[in-house]
């Protein structure tokens, strides 16, 4: 069950909000240096936005717009909202720029037809479905970033299930925010440390308890390599999309993909 809680520390002017079971994970927000009231308002706006996006993009909940598309688009074209339309077009752009390695159909993006005039989508084959697992958190982060800007939040740490992180400004006792990446196969082995300052960090990879959840859309094969990929970028959506794409990419593809984006850094760890 989803639950939300928040706390405010007067001494340090730190707000912490936490939301569980959102987009399949947990969401945490830490704001530094804002009043209790402002922080509370920001937290409310964010919670509402995340719930709205979850109600739109979650394919495991039957009532969402995406579930409706998944259920009916193979039979007849489905009229979609403006926002979903923009998202689908954006996913197509990412698909092209990643040479097919980012694919919300997980197998054949060409089977998804977008009809611009009517703003409808249809599937060319019956077993197709859309999955925003490698996209939604990045998209959400971008929306949340806009909320933070609206309320002039300068220092905060936004954490989506530890795999998508966005940090503005700095830690109260540092000049940035630091996160470390641990090898999930060797507890205690720190693979690297990232210094975030107005940047987002997305991570994907296999863990001992969760392997084979990433599929190479070109070959259809599950990726079971012990690798972990981290992408840092000012754009949280780029970071999120590319971790998934690059984990399937070979060196040549990686080079070509990375060159098309303005990334701060990418790191691939063999575990």
């Amino acid at each position, binding site marked *: 069950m989803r639950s939300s809680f928040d706390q405010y520390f007067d001494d340090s002017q730190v707000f912490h909000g936490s939301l569980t079971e959102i987009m399949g994970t947990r969401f945490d927000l830490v704001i530094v240096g804002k009043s209790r009231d402002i922080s509370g308002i920001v937290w409310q706006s964010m919670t509402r936005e995340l719930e709205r996006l979850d109600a739109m993009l979650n394919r495991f909940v039957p009532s969402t717009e995406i579930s409706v598309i998944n259920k009916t688009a193979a039979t007849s074209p489905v009229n979609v909202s403006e926002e979903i339309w923009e998202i689908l077009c954006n996913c197509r752009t990412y698909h092209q720029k990643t040479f097919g390695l980012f694919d919300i159909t997980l197998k054949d993006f060409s089977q998804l037809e977008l009809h611009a005039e009517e703003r409808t989508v249809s599937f060319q084959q019956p077993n197709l479905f859309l999955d925003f697992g490698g996209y939604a958190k990045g998209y959400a982060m971008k929306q949340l970033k806009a909320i933070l800007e609206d309320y002039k939040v300068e220092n905060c740490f936004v954490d989506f299930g530890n795999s998508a992180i966005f940090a503005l400004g700095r830690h109260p006792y540092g000049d940035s925010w*630091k996160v470390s990446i641990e090898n999930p196969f060797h507890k205690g082995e720190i693979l690297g440390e990232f210094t975030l300052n107005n940047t987002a960090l997305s991570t994907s990879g296999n863990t001992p308890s969760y392997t084979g959840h990433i599929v190479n859309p070109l070959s259809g094969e599950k990726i079971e390599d012990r690798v972990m990929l981290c992408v840092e970028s000012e754009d949280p959506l780029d970071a999120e999309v590319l971790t998934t794409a690059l984990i399937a990419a070979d060196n040549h593809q990686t080079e070509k993909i990375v060159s098309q984006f303005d990334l701060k850094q990418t790191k691939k760890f063999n575990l």
Partner: protein
Amino acid sequence: MLKKTEKQVDLGLRQFIKDLGYISGGAALLSTIPWLQSFTPDTLNEIKNEKARIAVIGTGSRGQYHIHALLPMQHAEIVALCDIYPPNLEEASKLCPTARKYTDYRKLLESPDIDGVVIATPLNWHALIVLDALSAGKHAFCEKSMALTMDQCKAIYDAYQKTNKVLYFCMQRMFDEKYIKGMQMIHSGLIGDVVGLRCHWFRNHDWRRPVPSANLERQINWRLYRDSSAGLMTELATHQLEVCNWATKRIPQSVVGMGDIVNWKDGREVYDSVSLTYRYSSGVKITYESLISNKFNGMEDQVLGNKGTMNLATGMYYLEGVDNTGNSGIEQLLSQIGNKVFAAIPAAGSSWRPETKKEYKPHYIIEGDYNINDGLSMIGAVKDGSDEILSAFCQACITGEKGKDIVEEAYCATLLCLLGNQAMDEQRRIDFPDEYKIPYMNF
């Protein structure tokens, strides 16, 4: 910490206490540092127009270090200096030309316009001068260790019970911000139960001062001879054993050890290499080592807990296995901010942290600018608490309020040093003698 450029009344100590978070109400902090409870902002304000009239007895390198600290203090005034070695007296006199010069401290003590004396003499003089100063009605601040023998220490302790004068010993770690905050963390359970303590002090230096003529050897290099010094134990270990007692709130019951002159075979009488084990009644042990012909290991005061390690000298701590302060990155982040620590928090993969010997990530006791004593100076390190404790003494000279626990801590630490020397000299286990136990001690 103390900012000397600001010459305002007691600003140094005020800022220091403020930095500790004392003013915003810290009952927990106060139980860690009861000796700071006199220094409330109100007290500081009450005495802002007064000056303690201070005399410095022993104006060698350490005495001059204190003079440098006293000069900018608005609530202190150096009125007299005393030394039996003329070059040192002259050096000090250049620093405070208006202060009267003495070569006999007893004459100095007769002077009615002196509130307190700062004693920075060789160890064998401590007891005599401290006792005479108290008898003369002076407040006294004396360098560590307390005295050269256990009987002298006991005599000072007993005299202190009867006097209404203030007595401080320069146990500067008690006023060192990173030690205070680190102790608070230990006492709050951050590193779990204290299961061991490891302290060491390594230098590579002969511990000698140049001697202008041979007949001054014993006077100038007093640290090297047993009639004036108890060697590494009272000069170095005393601070570290005090830290151990402070951390455990206990006194070890027994000690074994070995001491030797390994490298500096130059006629000195005190060991240049000591290794000791102090044992508490719980079985927890202090492992103490000091060697002055290899400095690789530097100086460290480590308190080992079953959940983490506090390295007070470096101002860092390390946690064992799963961090009990939080199981997610965010909880760690919040705990860090609460402790004013800036460190990486884990992202991705399985959340949280090393159960390994190789990978300990340091956390900082205090963030920002703080000083680490590399242990190499023979005079004193910058911002190690010495100036704060001296400033506190000067205020106590005005208010007349005794410093809580300071004499007791100095007594316990010095006794442990001297018992350690006895264990090494006699090559046997020494149990804490009943006749030197005081009510302050918990075994």
